């Protein structure tokens, strides 16, 4: 099988995010970037499927992102993916999900595919849109937020489980399909040192939009980020202190009535 895994480079979950002065993005200085954590479940599931099939199946990572994405792509290769396609074009900076899906659809079609894994959403902008649009573009089914994945013996369908409020939903889908992965699906492996060593020799095929035969920026007019703004500052917090709790409550009630005028 040709197994495609989608990858996005995002700021580390522990990074402190600050909007830049121009309001065109975040301040990247000092911010560590990592593989989108949900995408790690996708990589692991792709690798597990390849290992289970053990028939020469190949895992190809596909990433649309800036030059610096090379490092997270290498990490995926170090985890065990076979090769990668990196769509890297200045035209893609701050692009919307339509554009990214359009570009990925072209890159994936050119590669050929039997199944696509991705994370359920990017932890940076939390849009969770690319997989849906991509499914539409490629005209294949999508199953989102998978927590269990089992490929049928003939590889023509798969059974999945999705965690929903209060229970699990069992789903069956035909193949090829795009599966977005949720926490609980698996425990992503580490990039081992032998893996890191081997990744040095694996191929990352770099493509510009022109290489993919794309003119202009597809879907650019559909939606557009106007400006990024920092969060408004929270209000001042006042602590009403008194020797006796009852006195503090009385004072709080007075303040709410007379100063805040909310009761």
């Amino acid at each position: 099988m040709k197994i495609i895994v989608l990858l996005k480079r995002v700021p580390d979950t522990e990074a402190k995010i600050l909007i830049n002065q121009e309001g065109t993005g975040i301040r990247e200085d000092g911010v560590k970037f990592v593989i989108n954590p949900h995408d790690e479940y996708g990589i692991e599931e792709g690798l597990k499927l390849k290992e289970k099939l053990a028939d020469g199946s190949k895992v190809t990572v596909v990433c649309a992102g800036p030059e610096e994405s090379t490092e997270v792509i290498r990490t995926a290769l170090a985890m065990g993916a076979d090769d990668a396609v990196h769509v890297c074009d200045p035209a893609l900076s701050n692009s919307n999900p339509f554009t990214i899906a359009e570009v990925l659809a072209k890159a994936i079609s050119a590669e050929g595919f039997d199944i696509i894994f991705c994370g359920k959403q990017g932890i940076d902008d939390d849009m969770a849109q690319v997989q849906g649009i991509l499914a539409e573009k490629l005209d294949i089914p999508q199953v989102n937020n998978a927590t269990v994945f089992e490929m049928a013996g003939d590889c023509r369908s798969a059974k999945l489980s999705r965690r929903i409020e209060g229970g699990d939903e069992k789903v069956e889908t035909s193949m090829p399909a795009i599966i977005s992965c949720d926490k609980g699906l698996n425990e992503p492996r580490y990039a081992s040192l032998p893996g890191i060593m081997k990744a040095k020799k694996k191929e990352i095929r770099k493509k510009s939009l022109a290489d993919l035969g794309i003119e202009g920026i597809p879907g650019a007019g559909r939606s557009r980020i106007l400006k990024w703004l920092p969060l408004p500052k929270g209000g001042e917090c006042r602590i009403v202190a008194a020797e006796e709790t009852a006195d503090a409550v009385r004072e709080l009630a007075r303040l709410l009535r007379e100063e805040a005028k909310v009761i």
Partner: protein
Amino acid sequence: MRFQFSDEERMIQKTVRDFASKELAAVVEIANRDGLFQEEIYGKMAGLGLMGITVPEEYGGVNFGTFCLAVVLEEISRVCPSTAVAVSVHNSLANHIVLAYGSGDLKAKYLPGMASGGTIGVYALTEPDAGSDVSAIRMSAVRKGHEYILNGSKIFISTGDRAGVIIVIARTDPGSRTRGLTAFLVEPAFPGFSIGKVEHKMGMKASTTVELVFEDCRVPEANVLGREGMGMQIALGSLDGGRIGIASQALGIAQTALDEAVLFGRERMQFGKRLVDFQMTQAKIADMATNLDAARLLVYRAARMRDAGGKCSKEASMAKLFASRIANDAVYDSMQIHGGVGYTEEFRIERFFRDARVTEIYEGTSEIQRLVIAREVLEEYEQMYPV
């Protein structure tokens, strides 16, 4: 001199940091309280390739070098310094000596198992009357046909009870102090080998420390490392790597001491202020952070020089001397910031305080490091300004 990390080095650091903070952290308290050697953790570390870091690919290693090993040891030590002991000894002493001095047959026979982590390598030099003074080694090795017969005991051997391969330095010629020593590769299965006394230490409790006893232990002559009489040279030639390893361990200890001091000091309120808002706390934090960075630069320099193939005895000794010193200062100040609770087992600074002490003692005491440094410095002046 390049201090920046390559992409690979950053990936390796991330892998080990993630592993240590998840898997090692989950078992570390029990392992250190009960003095357990964690088989499972070693299996996992081996699976990540951490037991063959400097071994070439043809023997199943990853061939990443001393700098990478230093980064790995620091990351492990940030969570559990005693787990780093075996990783350091295995990589920087056992693997190194077999690789550098083993015959083709010995390398082919032992290195793949050692690099994959299935076979743990340990290093046995210290005796009751020989440690810093290598030339005082008394353990005898007498040639008999195609074998050597070893008699005597080695003490304070880290992970000696788990070893698959033991590098032993023994005396083959009582007539020569320096040329009378020979290095052997001994398997614990060889007849006449046994484990003696198990030490109960102040710290580093997740690493076992034992006595190895050799009673007419028969070692094939093919298991001589280098040649007969090269033992002293081999022992001294392996010091640099071992010292960079322990210096890296000290970095991890100092980093955690600083982390814990700041995290605790931000929470703890006294006189209506956070501890970190007091200038006397800030002075401690400033010293810890500055010393840590200085130590790290010394360790990185020594490691890069070693990877470049140059002589680095002075630099390795400086790194070991300084990093172990500032690690002890850091755990002391960090515990001071913690106050009374830092002296209890509830807070991990208590464990790091105990673990830190030995970094100034093993792999060459601080006194020995100063001797090495002074000798080199005086030699440099001798060259520049001959008397």
